[in-house]
């Protein structure tokens, strides 16, 4: 029988090699009689170039001959049932082992248990509108949530000032170290390098006008007014904003926030305010250091590339750079700190369940933080220009 099977149904199999024939699923239908043999396993099915299919003209199978069947698993059973035309009742079988018949019955029963699922059609345009609408609604929700959280944080802050809530100094100082002190090297190095770059740019462009001495003003103005605080804010958003989200998010997914609430404590007082206070204090300090490093970087390039003597450079700086530029820069630092802390903490509190959620919200916190910082920096720039500062 093996030979007739192999020749008729499965020319791929070498009939002489009975061991190989044992491992390959074989099937042959004649009239209402289906003969199967070999191993009907996931492994062997996958090795076939094409899965066994019911011939179009095939009449319904009334009898199954399975004497040559060497092995059967659920994948094989499923495909065999497909070949039988997914019958409600299994056809009469001969040579089928009891365990295999059992498996066939189980698989058949489970296959029929499933209701056919209605296929949902995707309408390209409709989906586009639907998604656009959903994302607009989401943005609106996000803004509302952010404003609400602003309010909640301010309220808790006021309560602390009035003495109705405690200020967690230990936590605040811990965060000051992490967000402030630990960030000093990277902030200074980055500002120093950008300062040098700005000075180079100035030296090259301004030399064409014979005005390379103005490089001094370029470096000092840009760092005092904009770059010092902006660079710091971007670094802090990436470094500490994300850390806030991840820390609070991990606590949220571990139900620690719920535990805080059930113990009658306030997560804003416990987790958000210390972080915010730390950033409010450390951000101006970091910005100040960034300004100094940037001006140092620019100064070194200026002195070496412009052939100005250090004395002349410093005199020029003293004559042209007014103190108000420093205040214009520094006044923005606490605002940016507030934005970064609020977004970072809020995203952390929005984390739900899984580890993937922590990652998503961390990304979102950094993106939103940097966006808000640059947006408000632009608003400040317009404002200061209008009032003539």
């Amino acid at each position, binding site marked *: 029988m093996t030979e007739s099977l192999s020749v008729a149904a499965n020319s791929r199999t070498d009939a002489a090699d009975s061991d190989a024939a044992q491992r390959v699923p074989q099937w042959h239908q004649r009239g209402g009689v289906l003969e199967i043999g070999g191993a009907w396993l996931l492994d062997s099915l996958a090795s076939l170039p094409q899965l066994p299919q019911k011939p179009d003209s095939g009449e319904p199978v009334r009898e199954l001959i399975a004497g040559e069947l060497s092995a059967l698993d659920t994948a094989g059973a499923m495909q065999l049932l497909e070949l039988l035309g997914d019958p409600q009742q299994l056809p009469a079988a001969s040579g089928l082992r009891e365990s295999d018949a059992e498996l066939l019955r189980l698989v058949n029963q489970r*296959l029929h*248990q499933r209701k056919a699922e209605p296929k949902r059609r995707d309408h390209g345009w409709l989906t586009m509108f639907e998604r656009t609408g959903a994302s607009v609604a989401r943005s609106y929700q996000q803004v509302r949530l952010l404003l609400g959280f602003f309010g909640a944080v301010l309220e808790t802050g006021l309560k602390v000032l009035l003495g109705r809530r405690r200020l967690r100094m230990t936590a605040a100082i811990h965060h000051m170290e992490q967000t402030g002190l630990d960030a000093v090297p990277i902030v200074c190095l980055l500002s120093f390098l950008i300062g040098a770059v700005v000075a180079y740019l100035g030296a090259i462009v301004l030399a064409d006008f014979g005005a390379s001495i103005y490089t001094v003003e370029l470096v000092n103005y840009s760092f005092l007014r904009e770059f010092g605080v902006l660079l710091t804010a971007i670094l802090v958003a990436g470094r500490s904003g994300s850390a806030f989200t991840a820390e609070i998010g991990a606590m949220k997914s571990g139900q620690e926030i719920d535990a805080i609430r059930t113990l009658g404590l306030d997560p804003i007082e416990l987790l958000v305010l210390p972080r915010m206070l730390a950033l409010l204090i450390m951000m101006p300090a970091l910005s100040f250091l960034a300004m100094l490093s940037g001006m140092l970087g620019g100064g070194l390039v200026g002195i070496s590339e412009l052939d100005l003597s250090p004395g002349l450079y410093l005199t020029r700086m003293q004559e042209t750079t007014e103190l108000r530029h420093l205040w214009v820069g520094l006044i923005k630092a606490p605002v940016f700190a507030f934005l970064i802390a609020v977004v970072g903490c809020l995203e952390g509190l929005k984390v739900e369940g899984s580890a993937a959620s922590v990652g998503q919200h961390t990304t979102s916190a950094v993106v939103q933080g940097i966006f808000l910082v640059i947006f408000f920096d632009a608003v400040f720039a317009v404002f200061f220009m209008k009032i003539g500062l």
Partner: protein
Amino acid sequence: MSEVIIKIRGLRNAFGPQVVHENLDLDIQRGEILGIIGGSGSGKSVLMKSIIGLLRPSAGNIEVDELDALSTEPSERARLERSWGVMFQDGALFSSLTVLENVMVPLIEHYRGLPEEFVERLARLKIALAALPAEAAKKYPSELSGGMRKRAAVARALALDPQILFFDEPTAGLDPIAAAEFDQLLLTLSRSLGLTVVVITHDLDTLYTICDRVAVVSAKKILAVAPIAELEQHPDPWLQQYFQGPRGRAAARAGSSSTTAITQPSRV
């Protein structure tokens, strides 16, 4: 039921100076449901991890279906990994994929040539075999209850038609009704698909209702492997406490009153 499918000889596991297993031997028979018990920290999970290759023992041999389970040869590893399915404690489903996709992952990764329609049909069959409703297929793990997540994990473990299933505390965190249903599911699957099942559990009801034999991990070795009725008579003080405590006695009563239902595995 006399053929050995997993054979462990002289297993030694140590983390630094702390020795977890020393010269541990264990035979697991084909087609049986073996429970593994032991005190917390006795190394039950370490034993399972050594068998499935997540942890490399410092000495000893493990043979699974006559293959060297410690082999690092890629083609042999692939064959080994296809021969077992593992369900971790909380399912360990991929949280960014739906249940259906979770079940399809091993199929797609191991058999690239199979048509997608076939893979999806097969995955849906596995979901039905794990007694999950068809609607669950399109859901994400976070949208499922704990019991359903465990069933989804079973469906994924069944994906490659393994011969052996490993379970790490399958009924932990389930209510008694869901736990009993889960036990029945294991029993049904093991009997009708001819699977060998290895269950690490503290659930005395599971031990009494489904396990053919129970292995006790204690003092770095297997203290005993025997049907539970024999273990109850074991003189070891830990086992005495284990089975004679209030929970043990209650489970034993429940187990013996439903023996008739258990000895004749529920045929579907």
